[in-house]
Every structure is written in C-alpha cells, then in structure tokens.
C-alpha cells in the first residue's frame, strides 16, 4: 500500500507526460489526488491504530510524525487539484498572456509538463514523509526542489524565471548542506555502527535508540548542517529569501502547495535532527538554535508584513512567520510541541486557502498590489468573506484553530519559564496582526471600482476548495476530534513533548 502511495502519483505523472491530452491531465489530476488521499487515509488509520506498516524492506515505514505531514500534503493536494481544474481552464481560455507588471507577452509551460510535475511533486513529498531513512528523505526533498522549479516557472516571463533561479540556487545549496549534515551524522554514529548487526533501513529509529553512543561534537555539527540545509527549504529567516519571490511568482495553487505542504516536509527533516539531538541529550542546544531561528523569523515576518503592498508576498511572509512559530514551539519543548503540531495542521489549511483565494483576486483584478484592489465585498463577495475569515484565522484570532495552537505554544513558553521570549512572541504577533489587517481590509472594504462590473456568480470550483479548507480551520478552532488530538500528541511525543 505504501508502495502504491509512492508510485501512484509517479505513474500518473509519467502518463501525463507521455500521453498528455489536456483532458487526461485535467481529469487525471483530481483522480490521482483522490486515490492518493484515500491511500493516505488508510495508512493514517493504520498508524493511528498503533500498527507500524513497513514496505520495501523498511524503506517506507511511516511514523505518526510523518503520517501527519503525509495527510496534510495529500489533502492540500486534493483541494489544489480541484482548484487546478478551474485554473487550467481559465488559463487556456486566456491563451495569450501579458505580464501584469511589465506587460510583456509570455506563454505558459505546456500543461502536460505542469500537471506531470505536480504529480512528481506529490510523489517526492510522499517519499519524504513516509520514509524513516534520512538519505531517502534527503533524496525526496531534493526531488521536490527539482520538480517544483518547473511549477514556479509555469508562467514563462522574466520575473518568474528570476524567482525560479533564486529558488533553484538557494535551495540546492541548502540541500547540499543538508547532505553534508547527513554525512556528518553517520560519521558521528560511525563508532556505534560498528556494533550494528544488520543494515536496517529504519535509520531514524536506530539513531534515536543509540543516540547516546554517538560522538557529540559531530552530532552538533551534523545538526547545524541539517538545520541550515532543511531550514533554507523551510523558509526560516535569514535563509528564507527565496520564499517570497517564489511564492509571489508561482501560480497560486503552486504557492498554496509550496507554502502548505512543502514547508512542512522540509520541517520534517529538521525535526528528525532534533529528535536525534533530544535523545542524545543535546536537546538544549538544538532547542536553543530553533528558538533563535523562530524569533528571527517572526521579526523578519513582522518587518516585511507591515506596510507590505504585494498581497502574495504578504502571504509568503506570513508563512515565514508561522514557520518561525513552529520552530519556537518545538524549540521550547514540553506542552508547546503538541501545540506546534496543531499549528502546523491549521497553518497549512489556512495558508492553502488564502493562496487559492489570492489566485481568484489576481484573476479578477489583474494586480498584485493591495493598494489597487478595492471593494472586493461588492465585486466578489464569497472570496471577500473567505479572504477576511482567512486573515483572521492566519492572524491567530479565535474562533479559528490557529488561536488554540498559538495559545498552547504561549502556554508552553510560560511553562518553560521564558517570560521575555513569550512577551516578544506576543508583541510580534500583535504587530503582524496590525500589518495584515491594514492590507486585507483595504482590499475588502470600500466601494466597487467604477470600471468593474458588479458581482457575478463566482465559479464553484474557484471558491469551494478554499471554503472547505476554511470550514476545516474553523472546526479545529471549536472542536478538535479526539483521535486527531491523540495523533498529534503521539507525533509530538516523538519530538520531545
């Protein structure tokens, strides 16, 4: 089943690539997503039941942590796939594109390649989440970079090319460092490896079990490289610089996937390192480094969200912010970790929703600047309502799920007796709320632009996926199912809750 999970999107991608009729792509994408989600759900159910499924000789053996992110990636991909049906149709209808900023003409990447890369992207994320082998995980993350580069360059104009280049170079460097981290890791365990009977592929588990035997200096160095490497991909400041560019230039559903799913997968890499450090008794150091990155990311996000005129970049920076919050929660440890897990879930749902909505806005207003968007509540009421709700959710105000998670993380900070950290955390969150509110309300409120027709019915496929996500986040704010909470706590237990 795990193998199917991995190979379903792969094969689908290959089929699309080879026999790329438009209908195949557009219908195949949701079908693939559905199948993948079904399989992922089954896997999650088994893991939740406490079984430990393993295939390919243990190369694919998800633990709760990985399964959590697997489910996230799968669900987000499902919504994005349905959104893509509408999106690709629109793109085809437009045909000849002109760049919004410099009005240069451009064409799109062939649809077949786009959808195929989407599938490959999903496959690589699946690999990342369900393998317990650091190397395989590394391969997966590298694969996500290479496949998503194509996606970012969907609109073939200068800016997207620039964004793609930055994404490619920065992330490749990061990944290279992560690889070095892996090497140093196995050096650290070299002396312990000697006593190792059989070459099992469940590396993480083995590392965690024998972390005490490892050579601490190498372990520290390894963690530093892993943190910086995967942190680059995860978008922790000051390594985040590719993120706003890529997110602002990519098609909205790609930004949604990057921000909602990919960042979590990258974080998984960091978490593995943190896991090993914790069991090696070096949790203090790794936690400290995580807190450092978290605080820095929050600051950076605050700096760039205040007075941000480009609403997709604003969303991207808010992703930086939330990655920072996750890093903080995990670094603080204790009760905050389960809060961080919940936060990861809620943030992915919310951010995916917001990016999809930003796609709608872009299609209606043809501008990136929130100064030029006015009176959305008259021109596109549903999107406007969801956009406002999404803003409140992402700013962490009740009754949305992010409030609960941020509350738990804050509680964890107090429990860890870090008053100044928690004060800074709240202050930065407040600043970010103010910054976001200015831009979002500017777009939603006001009179309808005179040159714009009054509201017509918005296509269902463009608002339903975000609506579903929004409802999910709202539900998580008011009612968190028991099994889900147990799952989160089990996942958190792996990283030191």
């Amino acid at each position, binding site marked *: 089943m795990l193998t199917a999970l991995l190979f379903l999107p792969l094969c689908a991608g290959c089929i699309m690539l080879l026999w790329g009729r438009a209908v195949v792509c557009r219908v195949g994408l949701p079908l693939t997503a559905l199948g993948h989600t079904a399989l992922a759900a089954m896997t999650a159910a088994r893991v939740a039941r406490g079984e430990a499924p393993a295939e390919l000789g243990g190369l694919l053996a998800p633990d709760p942590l990985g399964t959590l992110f697997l489910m996230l990636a799968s669900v987000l991909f499902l919504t994005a796939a349905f959104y893509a049906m509408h999106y690709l149709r629109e793109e085809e209808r437009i045909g000849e594109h002109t760049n919004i900023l410099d009005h240069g003409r451009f064409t799109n990447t062939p649809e077949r390649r786009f959808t195929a890369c989407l599938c490959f992207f999903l496959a690589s994320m699946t690999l990342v989440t369900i393998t317990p082998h650091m190397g395989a995980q590394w391969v997966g993350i590298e694969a996500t970079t290479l496949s998503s580069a194509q996606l970012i360059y969907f609109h073939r104009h200068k*800016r997207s*090319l620039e964004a793609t280049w930055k994404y490619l170079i920065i992330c490749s460097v990061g990944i290279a460092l992560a690889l070095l981290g892996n*090497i140093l890791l196995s050096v650290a365990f070299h002396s312990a490896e000697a006593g190792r009977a059989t070459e099992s592929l469940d590396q993480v588990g083995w590392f965690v079990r024998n972390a005490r035997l490892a050579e601490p200096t190498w372990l520290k160095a390894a963690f530093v490289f892993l943190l910086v490497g995967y942190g680059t991909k995860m978008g922790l400041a000051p390594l985040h610089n590719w993120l706003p560019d890529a997110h602002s230039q990519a098609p909205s559903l790609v930004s949604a996937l990057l921000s909602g799913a990919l960042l979590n997968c990258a974080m998984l890499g960091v978490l593995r390192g943190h896991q090993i450090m914790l069991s090696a008794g070096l949790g203090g150091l790794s936690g400290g480094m995580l807190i450092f990155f978290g605080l820095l990311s929050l600051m950076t996000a605050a700096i760039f969200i205040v007075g941000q005129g480009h609403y997709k970049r604003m969303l991207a920076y808010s992703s930086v912010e939330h990655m920072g919050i996750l890093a903080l929660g995990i670094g603080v440890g204790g009760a905050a970790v389960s809060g961080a897990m919940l936060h990861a879930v809620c943030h992915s749902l919310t951010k995916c929703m917001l990016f999809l909505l930003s796609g709608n806005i872009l299609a209606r207003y043809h501008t990136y600047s929130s100064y030029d968007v006015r009176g959305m509540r008259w021109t596109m009421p549903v999107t406007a309502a969801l956009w406002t709700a999404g803003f409140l959710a992402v700013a962490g105000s009740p009754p949305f799920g992010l409030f609960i998670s941020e509350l738990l993380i804050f509680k964890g900070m107090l429990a860890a007796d870090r008053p100044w950290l928690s004060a800074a955390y709240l202050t930065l969150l407040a600043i970010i709320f103010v910054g976001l509110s200015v831009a979002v309300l500017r777009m939603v409120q006001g009179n309808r632009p005179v040159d714009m027709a009054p509201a017509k019915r918005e296509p269902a496929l463009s608002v339903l996926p975000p609506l579903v996500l929004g409802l999910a986040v709202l539900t998580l704010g008011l009612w968190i199912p028991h099994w889900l909470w147990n799952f989160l706590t089990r996942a958190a237990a792996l990283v030191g809750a």
Partner: protein
Amino acid sequence: MATLLQSCLFLLVLSNFLLLGTPRVPGLTRLTAFQGLLLAALLLILDHALLAGAVLLIKGALLPSLLWRTQKRLPPDALICPTRRVGLGVLAGMAALVFSIWLDGKLVMPQGLFPPMLLPTGLGTLFCGLILIVGRIKAITQVIGYLVAENGIFLLGVPLMTAGTVWFELALLLDVFVAVFVMGIAINHISDSFASIDVARFRSLRD
C-alpha cells in the same frame, strides 16, 4: 599511498584557490573538470575503482562538457567577472580554510575513519564553492560554485564508503547531475530572455 592521498588533497586545496582567483569562466570550467579528475584519482587511491570511474565520467567529463556547451551559447562578454571581487574571494578562501582547520580541531575524530587533512580540505572546498557563488555574479559561475561545493561534500563522504554506506555518493552524483542539468536549462532560458546571465540584474523581486 598516504603521500599520494595527501598530495591529492593538497592539489585540491590549490585548485580551490585557483578557482577563487580565476576571473574568466572558461578557466573555471577547466578547473572544475580538474577537480573531478582529482576526486576520481582520490577514489582510486582509496581503491573504489568502480565509483572512481563514475566520478570520472560525470564530474570529470559530463558536467564540464555540459558547462562548456552552455558557455559556448553565451555572448563572450558575459564570461568575465570584475577583478576586485576576485581578490576578496581569495582572502575569503583563506579565512574559510582557517575556519575549517579550526573545526577540524574541534571535532573529535573517530579513529581510522578520516585520513589527516581530509576533513579540512573537504570543508574548505565546500566553503570555497559557496564563496564562489557569493563572489561571482554570473549565473554560470554560480552553477560552478555549486559544483565545487558538491565536490567538497563528496570528498567528505568518501571515507564513509569504507564504512559501507555507498548511497551517499551515488545519490550525490545523481543529484549533482540532475541539478546541473536543470540549472543548465535555466541558464539557457535566462540568456534567452535577459540577453545576459548577470544575476546582479535579478533585482525586480525585492521589498
């Protein structure tokens, strides 16, 4: 044996500084090829003949030729870097070497795993690659820098093969190949649409 190894490592360090000191892209390409050869030789010395062949093939021949093809398609004036950056680059390389030797002192060596000087050399190569990316503002030099950095990491991975974990190197080779391939494509697009590969012009996306 050991002397051969040491001299290889020395040559590698030397090539790093040459890389940092070379202003012109063709020279850089040749030097990367040379590093590939060195790595292959190094593997031969540590008698991993098969992998040595693979390295020779990919790092020594394939990637340089790929770069070569790319730079042939570029306008000649796109291949020179300002010299001031070069000088700074060499200084930074020195600093990088010192830092990696400091690290070498800090890290407690598992006995018999690392030959002397291999760790600093690897780290130094890695940092030199990064410095190359930072210091040069041409897209293609950034690819070369990335390649050099990967060489460093590869070098650090070599001793582990004796410990039996081969997948690092294979994955690395594969990855490097694909990455450079994709980057080559990207460079072509860049040179087509920007009529230059000067990444310092990539400043339309900023705050």
